[in-house]
């Protein structure tokens, strides 16, 4: 394997990590806001406090890691994407700020300002939407090089059905991932009311998820036949993903093996995410930039890889400790323990 591929795999893994942990966070915020409207907020707010508050900063670092890493390994992306993405990414930053400040301002300051909880919930759907636009742009067809400068065709982007399908898929995934995870978490916390509610949401959102996924593959045939052929050529990966999806839904339906269902869910998305990534190879921005043209020099790449390995040796034990204390600690999860917050 060459360094280019190694670099992109590492980054893709971190992006995947972000997609999973952030989806749980975004979805929980949305369900919480929704339950405020229907006066059931007490059900979820507890879970948000106990699980999400200690880890939200870690969630954010996954994103930071991805964008710093991609500019490090592929400095050309700063030029291509940096020039065209000013507006969508700035909006995403502002929405991220709303969420970040929510944890701090709400859980310590005043409690439960409805408008804030609402903004927090809605931002959970808008952030994936604005970030998923980046994926749409990477499919090609929206960026032209004029006078050596990349230019984004906003009109084409906003009128393309592909854009909106990807936005809808991102929303459906966020809600589905989060609902499945929280179904399990609430069960562990022995919070039966929340468990039932989240199970219902998980089953509801399974449908739109699979529908949008199929719709996108079909649209790809129109939009970018090249990419479509690539996707078809690795159909087994998509097939495995679909099978895992069915198994997850079945487990949740039967209320059996909920821990297993979360594992299957993660595998399902892992397969789909990597199938998507592989079919995208070797382009970073179709057809202007490949991982080979955009790559940094050899010396930098090697030092980044060394730094990465050293960093992992530091991080993995720490993450293990974090999860052991907050996610897998029965006492903490069920809230039987005293509150140890500073």
């Amino acid at each position, binding site marked *: 394997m060459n360094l280019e591929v190694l670099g992109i795999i590492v980054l893709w893994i971190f992006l995947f990590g972000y997609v999973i942990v952030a989806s749980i966070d975004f979805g929980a915020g949305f369900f919480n806001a929704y339950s405020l409207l229907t006066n059931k907020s007490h059900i979820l707010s507890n879970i948000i406090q106990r699980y999400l508050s*200690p880890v939200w900063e870690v969630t954010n670092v996954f994103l930071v890691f991805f964008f710093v890493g991609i500019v490090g390994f592929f400095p050309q992306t700063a030029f291509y994407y940096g020039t065209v993405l000013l507006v969508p990414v700035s909006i995403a930053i502002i929405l991220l*700020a709303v969420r970040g400040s929510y944890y701090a301002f709400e859980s310590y300051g005043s409690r439960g300002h409805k408008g804030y909880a609402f903004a927090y919930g809605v931002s959970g759907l808008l952030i994936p939407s604005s970030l998923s636009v980046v994926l749409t742009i990477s499919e090609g067809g929206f960026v032209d090089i004029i006078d050596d400068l990349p230019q984004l065709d906003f009109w084409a982007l906003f009128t393309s059905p592909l854009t909106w399908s990807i936005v809808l898929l991102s929303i459906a995934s966020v809600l589905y991932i989060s609902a499945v995870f929280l179904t399990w978490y609430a069960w562990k916390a022995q919070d039966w009311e929340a468990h039932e509610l989240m199970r219902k949401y998980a089953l509801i959102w399974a449908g739109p998820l699979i529908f949008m996924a199929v719709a996108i593959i079909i649209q790809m045939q129109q939009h970018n036949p090249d990419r479509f052929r690539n996707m078809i050529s690795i159909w087994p990966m998509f097939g495995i993903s679909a099978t895992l999806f069915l198994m997850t839904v079945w487990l949740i339906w039967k209320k059996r093996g909920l821990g297993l269902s979360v594992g299957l869910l993660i595998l399902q998305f892992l397969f789909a995410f990597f199938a998507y990534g592989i079919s995208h190879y070797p382009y970073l921005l179709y057809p202007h930039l490949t991982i080979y043209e955009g790559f940094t020099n050899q010396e930098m790449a090697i030092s980044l890889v060394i730094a990465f390995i050293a*960093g992992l040796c530091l991080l993995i034990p720490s993450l293990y400790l974090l999860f052991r204390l907050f996610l897998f600690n029965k006492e903490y999860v069920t809230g039987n323990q005293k509150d140890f917050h500073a």
Partner: protein
Amino acid sequence: MMNESAVFWSRMLTELTLSFHIIYATIGVGVPLMIMIAQWVGMKNNDEHYILLARRITRGFVITVAVGVVTGTAIGLQLSLLWPNFMRLAGQVIALPLFMETFAFFFEAIFLGIYLYTWDRFDNQTKHMLLLIPVAIGASMSAVFITVVNSFMNTPQGFELVNGELVNIQPLVAMFNPSMPTKVAHVLASAYMTSAFLLASIAAFRLLKGSNHIYYKKSLFLMMKLGLIFSIATAVIGDFSGKFLAEYQPEKLAAAEWHFETEEAASLILLGFMDQEENIKLAIRIPYALSILAHGNPMAEVIGLNEFPEDEIPPLYIHYLFNIMVFIGMFMTLVSILYVAGVWRGWQFIKKVWFRWLTVLGGPLSIIAIETGWWLAEVGRQPWILRGYMRTAQGATTSEHVDMMFILFCILYIVLGIGSIVVLSRMYRANPIEQEIQDRMAEVEGGVR
């Protein structure tokens, strides 16, 4: 191809975001160390007050961290959004410390989460305190790595530019560039100093507002002692920074000192202002002082602005910034010396209202010193974004919408700034120290622990 207005607004937006982030970032770097020292002193002397101090600071710290993270994410993305040309060039040489910075955040974020939610969870207090070490190290290392990036922009090295192509790249040589030692040391020392004086000014403020609790007196004394140590360190390292500039970035020093002609035995210009014709008015000239500041020798030659082409001279207003920073540094050293000596020798004036107010001023003043220091360093590098290789205007984006984004971010920072102040003051007011100590006693006596 260059877009004048995009360049202008990119500068404004970068300036805005960084100037805002740096406040919270400085607190983020310095405060964990203060918490650690307070908790350690408390455990060593078996004094519940210091442990409470650590606990109360931690609670407020969460809020400043959140704003720091949010604005840091913003600046991290904006670097690529606003300076795409710069990042694609410099990224090839200086990506390593940026990348390592994310590990430092990661490390810090994980342990901060654990520390925060495990007060009294362990039977052994020391175990809990040890969790702070990775937090403090992570935060300080973030500052180190990002400052390394910034020092590279001032004195780039570790690569060669042949026909517009970068060759012979050495990431470690780029990191350990000439401006790195002084810059990193000065940034760290000034962050610790600022955090200590900020916490001291809170304690002094409570004492002024009628609380006479021993808790605040202990807190004030501890923080003033720490502030004294770090303000001396800051000033000494600041002096080294001046010497570094004289050697490697003489145009920055000359502009900051309004030193126009290269000369030996140069005198230092303090204060003063400049009129339209570049005449200096009302300034104090200290003979030989500039030569001493620059080279440690009253007879040494100091390079003046006449050695540089007209279009490579930084804006001359950085003189004011430099003066403000240095004045604050001296002033705070003096205030803290008086206070610490006063406590030891029993001087009465340190308990007077006017002196308390000086102490209260210390926190905001230190923040102002941080801001002016960065403005000095960054504006003093102009017109370069990568000194000697790329001008700021060449690095900028060409996008049309930067002005709109500037307005959006202005609103965001106003909300975050006001929000964090309101939430912080409400939080402490809802749970004053007298109340908390009582609750704590009841808890311990009730045997709940």
